[in-house]
């Protein structure tokens, strides 16, 4: 990534060398990444992802897993980066939004590090971090952002100092829909096999069933009715599971794309950027690609490697905050489960 490209995407006042360590622990992944700038360089990217054997994400179990791996992750991140801990200029941490117990693991680790290294602690909003790593890697200046993951489904644009949510799910997130459906019907866990979701694998060879609910309200969507209908149908017709998976996926994706198209029209954006864990879904990616071709707009999905939660995106957003002198006193660096993206000022937008 060239400096000139980065300078066109960001307004960065102080071009001084910075090495930032970022900590991610909002949901299932404990990630520690170290990024230096300028030039942009990923020095290390350590991830411990919790994969449940049964059920979903039990906060206590995920937290235990994170705590027991935290020391190891930190040591690995610093060794891999080939730096001394004193070379680090700041500690960035995702304080929210996310699941409380997990957030506290990252917050605690970050406070301890900032105190012992005597370095500033930079608060990072998890959703902002997904967008910033996407903007950076895709080189997108002012896109409509489609942020999709296990916990989030939001359409976001930048307007007047902030990212604003212009459309979102009114109930459950897209990832959540796919996960709950696959768990309840017994086709998961494991949720992801060779990079593909259980629902995608099950949808293979399926055909479309008419009559499932399709809910788009303006630029918002709803998935809970679809989930109920799909589960009910699957219980009654266990042999038709492939058809149900296929139909569920087609409708869920179509709803999201229609809401995105509505948002594109109303906000007049000429670029789309897809970020978040579900962005790694190739079927959805294909559909967005077709849509953008038809509408003749630019479309980019974040590098699959950085679609899911990771420490690098927190570190990069930390760099942006650090260069703008953003930091938080140690005693105020607490987990914020409900930290909406539109509460965060974005001073680095050109």
């Amino acid at each position: 990534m060239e400096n000139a490209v980065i300078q066109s995407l960001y307004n960065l006042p102080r071009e001084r060398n910075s090495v930032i360590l970022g900590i991610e622990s909002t949901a299932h992944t404990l990630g520690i990444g170290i990024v230096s700038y300028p030039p942009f360089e990923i020095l290390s990217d350590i991830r411990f992802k919790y994969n449940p054997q049964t059920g979903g994400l039990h906060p206590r179990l995920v937290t235990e897993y994170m705590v027991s791996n935290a020391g190891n992750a930190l040591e690995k991140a610093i060794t891999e980066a080939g730096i001394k801990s004193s070379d680090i200029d700041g500690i960035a941490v995702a304080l929210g939004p996310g699941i409380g117990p997990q957030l506290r693991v990252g917050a605690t680790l970050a406070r301890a590090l900032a105190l012992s290294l005597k370095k500033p602690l930079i608060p990072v909003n998890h959703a902002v971090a997904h967008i910033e790593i996407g903007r950076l890697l895709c080189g997108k200046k002012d896109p409509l952002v489609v942020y999709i993951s296990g916990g989030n489904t939001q359409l976001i644009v930048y307007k007047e100092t902030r990212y604003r949510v212009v459309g979102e799910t009114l109930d459950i997130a897209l990832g959540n829909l796919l996960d709950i459906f696959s768990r309840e019907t017994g086709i998961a866990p494991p949720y992801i096999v060779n990079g593909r979701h259980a629902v995608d694998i099950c949808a293979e060879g399926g055909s479309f069933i008419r009559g499932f609910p399709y809910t788009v309200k303006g630029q918002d969507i709803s998935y809970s009715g679809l989930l109920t209908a799909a589960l009910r149908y699957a219980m009654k017709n266990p042999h038709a599971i492939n058809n149900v998976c296929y139909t569920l996926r087609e409708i869920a994706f179509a709803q999201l794309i229609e809401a995105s198209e509505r948002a594109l029209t109303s906000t007049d954006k000429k670029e789309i950027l897809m970020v978040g864990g579900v962005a790694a879904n190739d079927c959805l990616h294909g559909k967005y690609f077709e849509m953008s071709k038809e509408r003749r707009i630019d479309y980019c999905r974040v590098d699959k490697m950085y679609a899911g939660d990771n420490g690098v995106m927190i570190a990069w957003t930390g760099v942006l905050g650090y260069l703008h002198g953003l930091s938080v006193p140690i005693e105020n660096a607490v987990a914020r489960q409900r930290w909406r993206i539109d509460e965060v000022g974005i001073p680095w937008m050109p």
Partner: protein
Amino acid sequence: MDALEELAGLLTSGKMLSMGAEAAVYLTSFMGENFVVKYRFPKKYIHPLLAEELIVKRTKREARVLLNTRLNGLCVPRLFFTMLSKGILVMEKINGSRLDELIGKVYPGEEQSTTFSRIYYNIGVVLGKLHSMNIIHGDFSVSNLMIKDEGLTELCIIDFGLSDFSNDPEDRAMDLRILFKSMESRFPRYLPSFRDKVIQGYKAGITGFNFNSVIQRLREMELRGRYVKERRRKHKTSVHNI
């Protein structure tokens, strides 16, 4: 069938005005008169059976709502011709400006003047009347409201593509929410005064149903979004704040 195809081709051969989310809109003329042709076409990335289901359902519903609202005296495009199997509607061309264009371009700085206050109030009145007919717009955003050029007073509603018949407070509140969110995403600074005026007008415009039931539902709906703080009422300063 061939004649139908030919006619569909002819209707969609005009100048494309816009490419909306679910339809392309063309301008065409016949005997010196301008018409708008709304064409819902199947898309590659939507399953053909799903596309067909949505196209027929929405075209039919839009036609019914356009007739109903017109008969009840609201300003909406007059409907001239429908071709359900092709997803085509032919309508009147309204000579005016979209509200968002008007706010953004034509009168910069004047967004909170009395002219605009009157327009905002009027939006509420018109929506109230629409809801009193048990009709829900479904995408009642600032870009689907037109102000007629003459006098900047008459307000017309366009794009009933997501409309429906309903008297559910939830559906009514949704129209208001979409309106406010569309204002927020385009002109966040003007939202508070816009909201006040619209709600005043809405209260004045409705007949036959309870105003509070809708406003209360709107509030609930706003709290339903992801990570909304007010939803969490208790334990504000508890041991969890670490």
